[in-house]
């Protein structure tokens, strides 16, 4: 039998009982939660350790045998289905979780760990893992990373890629790599971002270091009944643009409601067209305030009734119902096509109208659940696999819905991935250059096409025939109803921030200020292009992490002068590889930013800055502990700056929040008490609200900043490299936890590769990327994007390219 040698090898590597070859198992592993059919595997392997996982991949590579990794098999696009004769590598035995690091709010887990298990594991530290796909009880972290999964509660805090700090991964040749140091900002070529959402086609996740968030003090879940669906979708836009940023905002339409009600008897109204679930959370008064505001808004938008879940128990049941909605469809029809389109928020109502028309035209039944706040819809088109005519109608209705979403500037997939299912559609969304580069990336990482072949990208003929060419927008345009702004790269960021501020919004990108006092920082003169190229960030982000998260769509020019459009003007998108995260922050070595669509978010209501002038040189351990405890006990993200200066202020704390006694007021009081306890003078406090926030000098009193170490061990960086100078100034941020050593970039902010080092007042790049990052692949990416070497190239990369050429 073909493959017998490999099976023998695999048994030797992982033991006989961990290799399944019986026909029953092969049948089972040929299927997943998608209703797709692909091939029959050669065998199924169940490795028990990451090292065994690596050896299995290496054995497949040796035998040139295709393989696919399978997590929970809950994927809805067929990602985990094996090609004919492929090896299925299941991660179900890779279930170890490291202890939670409560200080850095991180945990490292193996790829087979279930999503829900991470939050359960972290709960004792008051933390949780934010992405919560509805399948979270059965889906694995490896699968979440591979699909860049979202979930109802990703609305405010972002999808999986925004909560993964570092991956250890195995390339298709069976070599183990990492994505970097897991620093605060892994700048440089964005491998981490590229791997997230690559659908297991570029390599295998061996472990993931995840960011955890603190559990909210209070949560209010509103349930609003809308007699008309279009009122509900319009209400979403009203809500999202009102300044309340809910944790979750979901809609369930009438058909789905009936199924869910029949299955779980929650007590949903079934005589309305839509029910919206809207959740706000935070400090108790904040949640109450937001809930009251949301309630008024929803009522004004046409809700018949709005009520809050009575208690935690009812809330849990409510989410159970919502999350099991897909399963409940089994009661309506034997099968369904699960669609996963996303549109700009402003197009939501239009798309819903399109769907109604398509439903009538194709004579099919459609039940829809919406991650409404993200503009992400899951219409499920019902069919019965015994009815050929119905199958055909359902498929054409599904395609019509996707094309409708594309016509509205959307994406064919927001979280389920392309898989097998949407391979025939991607080329109608992505431009030729992007498609060519994506295929190039696949060929670079997996030259023998062994790693989950036939997924994620269109077939080569289709890609070659793709007709879309990227058109770079020439001027600034705000789309307030979609919470986006599109701008050419040359636009000063401060200009956009000022405009956004007129509506109480901002772009969660740092570097809004220029501090003259301390020298030129990453100041107000920065353009959109600068920020994207350098991936700059700074304390003014106040709780937002990667600059790439704010970049939804990016036009960029490669070294050979081609133009690509990465991403889409939508809040969630997993069509093809994530070129946005690959390019943002890469210092312009892969491509030069030309224009971008950025996300607008409700601006902080108020920012307060406390300054102390005579803080002694070093904190005692006790002082430090107390200080951190004060900051930790508040939900607002805070930024701390510490400077060993001869005179002038030597400690700053900045925090964003609400202009209320119970919010920033309480933090201020605690800081004052801390000062008193430790014999320090009271801080000077400056509070800014409203228009003052809009000024480019948002945090002008803070020293300018740049990014450095990932480690937050406050004021004493642990893994400082021996040749790094002792920093004069340190910045610590409480959410996400990170420490900055801002011995500042003097001129151009060309920070790249994760953690810069600082010498003579200048940010210097580390001699090369962190250990474990695959230099040959980085060099390959450089060659792919910039074959003639026209774009900037750091020394280490030059050396590597030369060595490779020689």
């Amino acid at each position: 039998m073909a493959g017998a040698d490999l099976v023998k090898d695999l048994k030797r590597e992982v033991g006989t009982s961990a290799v399944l070859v019986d026909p029953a198992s092969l049948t089972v592993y040929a299927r997943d939660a998608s209703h797709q059919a692909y091939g029959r595997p050669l065998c199924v392997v169940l490795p028990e350790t990451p090292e065994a996982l690596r050896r299995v991949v290496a054995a497949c590579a040796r035998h040139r045998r295709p393989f696919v990794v399978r997590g929970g098999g809950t994927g809805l696009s067929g990602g985990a289905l094996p090609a004919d004769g492929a090896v299925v590598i299941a991660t179900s035995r890779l279930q170890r979780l490291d202890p939670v690091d409560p200080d850095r709010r991180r945990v490292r887990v193996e790829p087979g760990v279930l999503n829900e298990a991470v939050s359960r594991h972290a709960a004792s530290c008051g933390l949780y893992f934010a992405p919560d796909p509805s399948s979270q009880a059965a889906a694995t972290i490896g699968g979440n990373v591979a699909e860049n999964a979202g979930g109802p509660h990703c609305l405010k805090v972002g999808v999986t890629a925004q909560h993964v700090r570092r991956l250890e991964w195995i390339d298709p040749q069976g070599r183990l790599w990492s994505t970097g140091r897991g620093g605060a900002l892994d700048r440089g070529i964005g491998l981490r971002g590229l791997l997230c959402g690559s659908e297991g086609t570029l390599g295998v996740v061996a472990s993931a270091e995840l960011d955890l968030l603190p559990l909210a003090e209070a949560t209010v879940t509103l349930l609003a009944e809308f007699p008309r669906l279009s009122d509900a979708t319009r209400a979403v836009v009203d809500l999202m643009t009102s300044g309340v940023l809910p944790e979750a905002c979901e809609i369930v339409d009438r058909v789905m409601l009936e199924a869910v009600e029949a299955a779980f008897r929650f007590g949903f109204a079934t005589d309305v067209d839509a029910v919206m679930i809207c959740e706000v959370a935070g400090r108790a008064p904040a949640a109450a305030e937001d809930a009251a505001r949301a309630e008024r808004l929803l009522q004004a938008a046409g809700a018949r009734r709005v009520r809050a879940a009575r208690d935690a128990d009812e809330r849990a049941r409510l989410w159970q119902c919502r999350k099991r909605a897909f399963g409940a469809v089994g009661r309506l029809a034997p099968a369904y096509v699960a669609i996963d389109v996303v549109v700009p928020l402003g197009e939501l109502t239009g798309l819903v109208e399109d769907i109604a028309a398509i439903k009538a035209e194709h004579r099919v039944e459609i039940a829809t659940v919406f991650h409404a706040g993200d503009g992400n819809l899951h219409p499920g088109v019902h069919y019965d696999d015994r009815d050929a005519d119905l199958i055909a109608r359902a498929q054409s209705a599904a395609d019509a819905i996707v094309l409708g979403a594309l016509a509205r500037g959307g994406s064919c997939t927001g979280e389920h991935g392309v898989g097998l299912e949407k391979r025939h559609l991607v080329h109608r969304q992505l431009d030729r250059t992007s498609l060519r580069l994506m295929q190039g990336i696949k060929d670079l990482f997996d030259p023998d096409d062994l790693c989950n072949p036939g997924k994620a990208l269109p077939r080569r003929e289709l890609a070659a025939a793709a007709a879309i060419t990227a058109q770079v927008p020439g001027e600034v345009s705000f789309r307030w109803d979609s919470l986006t702004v599109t701008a050419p790269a040359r636009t000063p960021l401060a200009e956009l921030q000022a405009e956004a501020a007129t509506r109480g919004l901002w772009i969660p990108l740092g570097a809004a200020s220029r501090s003259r006092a301390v020298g030129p920082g990453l100041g107000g003169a920065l353009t959109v292009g600068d920020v994207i190229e350098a991936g700059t960030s700074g304390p003014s982000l106040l709780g937002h992490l990667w600059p790439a998260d704010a970049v939804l769509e990016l036009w960029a020019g490669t070294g050979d002068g081609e133009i690509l459009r990465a991403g889409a003007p939508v809040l969630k998108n997993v069509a093809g590889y994530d070129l946005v995260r690959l390019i943002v922050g890469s210092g312009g070595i892969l491509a030069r930013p030309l224009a971008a669509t950025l996300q607008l978010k409700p601006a902080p209501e108020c920012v307060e800055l406390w300054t102390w002038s005579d803080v002694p040189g070093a904190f005692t351990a006790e002082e430090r502990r107390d200080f951190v405890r004060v900051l930790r006990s508040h939900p607002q993200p805070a930024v701390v700056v510490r400077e060993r200066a001869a005179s002038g202020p030597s400690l700053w704390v900045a925090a964003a929040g609400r202009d209320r006694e119970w919010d920033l007021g309480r933090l201020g009081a605690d800081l004052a008490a801390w000062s008193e306890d430790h014999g320090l003078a009271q801080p000077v406090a400056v509070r800014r609200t409203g228009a003052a926030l809009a000024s480019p000098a948002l945090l002008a009193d803070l020293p300018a900043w740049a990014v450095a170490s990932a480690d937050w061990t406050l004021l004493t960086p642990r893994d400082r490299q021996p040749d790094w100078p002792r920093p004069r100034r340190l910045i610590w941020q409480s959410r996400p936890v990170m420490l900055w050593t801002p011995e500042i970039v003097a001129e151009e902010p060309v920070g790249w590769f994760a953690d810069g080092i600082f010498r003579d007042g200048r940010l210097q790049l580390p001699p090369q990327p962190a250990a474990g990052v695959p230099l040959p692949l980085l060099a390959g990416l450089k060659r792919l994007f910039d074959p003639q070497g026209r774009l900037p190239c750091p020394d280490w990369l030059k050396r590597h390219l030369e060595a490779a050429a020689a």
Partner: protein
Amino acid sequence: MTGPRDNVELDGLLRACVGCGLCLPHCATYLVTGNETLSPRGRLLLFGEVLHGRLPAAAPDVTRPFDLCLGCFACTAACPSGADAVLIRQLKDLGAATRARRCDPLALLDRGAALRALRRVGHVAASVLGQTLGMHWRRRLDGQPLVARVARLLGTVPAAPPTDRALERLIEQLIAKSGLPAASPLPAASGASARAGARVGWFRGCADAALLPSTAGRLRRLLVELGCEIVDPNGQDCCGAIATHAGRAGRVRSLRRRNLAAFAPELASCDHVVVAAAGCGLELRDYPAELSTRVVDAVVLLERLAPAGLGAVPLKVAVHDPCHARHGQGIVAEPRRLLGRIPGLQLVEPAEAEVCCGSAGVYGVRHAALSREIGLRKARVLVATGCDLVVTTNPGCLGQIADSLAIIAPTVPVLPLTDLLWYAWRTGSRAPRSRNTLTDT
């Protein structure tokens, strides 16, 4: 396995499975093996393939997943799509049918005499082994395949303190060791007192009566003291659960007949028929309506009787719900509410509470290695709660969990829930004074 007539209906049931995979993390055989062929979704899929003639029904790799199914119903409780409860029953029958084809001495375990003998041998052997090999004897025998099966059979025989005094001593020692603050008994007025007058038929159940006679005795006394009148008809036999599991339909029928005949004269005057073992309770629900509608689980009845004035038991207690109670009969809240009445007792919820412990009738012996893995996993999550004591309500689970805890955390005992309640009642303010001095029976 099924006639062509049933196929259309079965096919319809199979289609209810949308393949979402949400049942996987609830299935014990999948959790410990990581093998999806041994998961509910895998089994349903295979079932469909067999039904459509795409896989041979008799091939060992096809029947094995069904044989290894615990019949625990955890999957049906988790499935959002519904309709598969019937299907899992079919799957179970399929497994049972496979088993029935073999001659199996274990099927004889449904005879009271055999069980009583097993208990004696088991307890004697356990104490001899304990004395010769030390308290970790189970762990030491573990690696030995030849003795493993026998060790398991002996190790998993359910046991409870044989005398009231022994039970008291055990609980008092636990309380002394546990750091929880002692709570004073709640004022008696805060709970309703026992309602007198319920006439309760007593279903002996061979497993309970034969294996845990002292626990059964305490429960009876407790019910009486709470005001119940107990009717214990002669001529009762095993409920038939073991025979069902072994696929012995003839024996099931004859046992049913015998039990119905025994209860027939009393049924009309009984408000309830109380069953101590969850496994029997579920089996009895398949009996004709005159019996099945009266069946009530002992914990449910006790909870309704709302015993008041219980004595304090300042312990951290984890409940293990038998699948036959939790998934089979939907009994989840009652044991917790009942324990909630005990002052000072702190309930802790283990992870994977809905997952089977791997006992499942004679499964533990038949599939010793897998059952053991499942049991150890269960013990680990129970111990992870930091509990002082585990309680459960089915003799099978009791034996299985005791066996697994003995390997992982020999200091954490497992008791029948009703024994713990009995203790709280006896040390409380409402127990009859005359007998409140605790006596050995």
